[in-house]
């Protein structure tokens, strides 16, 4: 029984110490003050493991239909570009001010996984639908159905190939309605 007591009081000590540190206010929550590299790596590792696990069984639909680009483009432009930028844009108030920083999704290097397209699509779908805690990334699944989210995934997949002019055309909402 002795060792149980030992472990429990050890744990208690850790909890109390943690509370004291928190209470002292020395932990910075400023978004303009980055984590130390170790903390960052740890959080990143936990995030990637969590997403990979949660997204593993998601079934990826056919994303090559041009209509998906026409549906996802305007949604992306309205809801995401302020943080994740668009072709030809390098920064915005939010891309600079948020921490962790939103990746520039108009670049091919962002979010496409390690060449595994299916896994990359799963990952993006999951992140868009559920968001990422304690970052600026909201959960869009509360207000948007899967169909709309997949359309954005399809659009994001093509975005690195779009010129600013083509981006403008695909994302303009101007006349979606038609007037016939």
């Amino acid at each position: 029984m002795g060792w149980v007591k030992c472990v429990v009081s050890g744990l208690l000590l850790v909890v109390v110490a943690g509370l004291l540190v928190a209470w002292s206010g020395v932990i910075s929550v400023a978004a303009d003050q980055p984590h130390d590299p170790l903390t960052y790596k740890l959080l990143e590792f936990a995030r990637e493991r969590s997403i990979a696990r949660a997204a593993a069984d998601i079934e990826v639909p056919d994303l090559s239909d041009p209509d998906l680009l026409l549906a996802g483009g305007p949604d992306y432009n309205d809801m995401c570009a302020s943080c994740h930028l668009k072709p030809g844009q390098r920064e915005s108030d939010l891309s600079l001010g948020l921490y962790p920083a939103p990746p520039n999704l108009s670049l091919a290097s962002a979010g496409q996984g390690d060449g595994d397209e299916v896994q990359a699509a799963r990952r993006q779908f999951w992140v868009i639908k559920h968001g990422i805690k304690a970052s600026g990334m909201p959960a869009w699944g509360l207000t948007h159905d899967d169909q709309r989210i997949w359309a954005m995934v399809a659009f994001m997949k093509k975005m690195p190939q779009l010129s600013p002019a083509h981006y403008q055309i695909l994302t303009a909402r101007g006349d979606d309605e038609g007037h016939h």
Partner: protein
Amino acid sequence: MRIKQIVKHSFIAVVAAAFSVVTQAHDPSLHMKNAEAPNCKAMEGMDHSKMDMSDPIIRALMKKCMAQVHAEDGAAESAGSSEKSGQAQHEADHGQHKH
């Protein structure tokens, strides 16, 4: 654990504040009023013989611009200002939505 929680909640508060300014849940139709028209003039410079018609991007572009030709009448008023700066415009747009 507690530290993480505190850090977490503070982050959420800060970020939620920044975020609520620019984004709101919305139906596509809410955007129609201030909608920008596609600037299909940019397509005219493209060499059509080099277009790959099996490329979803090209097909989407063509489709969109076809739709624009047909919708010209309705889009005429907004077409004049189609070159306004996208980013600033959208943030302004969001500010106007009342939910």
